[in-house]
């Protein structure tokens, strides 16, 4: 199964995603669905985030 980078939306196997991982671990919620690369509807709250893909449903931060 192809997986996609949640930061840039490109295939994980396509290129180097070190910068993407760094941003995701520091200051960014996921923006792209890792299963289909659709842009997700993301709501950031003081304590977490939720990200909803129209096809694959909602995920949430551990803290949320």
């Amino acid at each position, binding site marked *: 199964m192809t997986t996609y980078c949640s930061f840039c939306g490109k295939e994980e196997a396509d290129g180097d995603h070190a910068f993407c991982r760094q941003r995701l671990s520091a200051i960014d919620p996921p923006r*792209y669905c890792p299963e289909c690369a659709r842009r997700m509807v993301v709501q950031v709250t*003081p304590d977490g985030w939720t990200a909803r893909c129209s096809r694959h449903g909602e995920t949430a931060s551990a803290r949320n």
Partner: protein
Amino acid sequence: MTAAPEQIDVLDEAREQVLERGVGLTEAQVLKVLELPEDRIGDLLALAHEVRERWCGPEVEVEGIVSLKTGGCPEDCHFCSQSGQFPSPVRSAWLDIPGLVRAARQTRDTGATEFCIVAAVRGPDKRLLSQVRDGIKAIREDGNDIQIACSLGMLTQEQVDELVAMGVHRYNHNLETARSHFPNVVTTHSWEERWDTLRMIRDAGMEVCCGGIIGMGETLQQRAEFAVQLAELEPDEVPLNFLIPNPGTPYENYPVVEGTEALRTVGAFRLALPRTILRFAGGRELTFGDLGAKQGMLGGINAIIVGNYLTNLGRPAQQDLDMLDELSMPIKALSQTL
């Protein structure tokens, strides 16, 4: 032959002018501070901290923020991932009332006294104002007495009056950058339009929160210009952001502001604004890391946004609260603000 005039050290001037008399630095003086060599930054931050303690006191004001309406903004602020004019991955979203109540509760539980409701809009329409009104009512019905601020873009006088009637005590509207640089950052509205909203807010009796973003291609001269323009406005609070180069925005490839440069800016802004709440806001995680955040708190900052921002994440709130505890900085209590 006459001797060269003695060079007056800008920090000596600041000690007498700002620390002793509470008079903020002029634009030329701020520029001198921004040009201080790296080996003077320690002296600068120590003085800025003394100024903050002398004119603002030891307390730190803690605030949480949330985005009520995310993305799809018609404006073209070049730093913003919420503009509908750029190919940003941020999609439009509305937070519902229960979500807003939860966010306010999360913020109160950190010990914060301020909760700011933010929307990515040019200005609020009836639907947005109705959502804000219902949200504030629901937050109060939840037994939450946290002070509520709003940031909803440019306002009409009628909208200012409505917000006052809702009990909004502070309004955020950033000038973002120096007047001379603003047209390079935003083309869909003017610096003067923002200024007009700020004057209406002040005249209506709401507290004014107005700051900006460092690292948007402004020169040091323009950074000094901005500090003094903010001082002229006499805001109650200045949030100091550092650019987060977000994907899809015109500034996505701009460099992150370097830590020492950011600290110099913090110190300079404190010396320009001795009595103002100076808040660490977005971008500090990238610019400073953990160590720099402490240096900033000991270099003139006296307020902090805890938890996440609007579209970006911050450090866990507890990490910042632990930092304040470690620095023996008391958190401003709600009773002190009423």
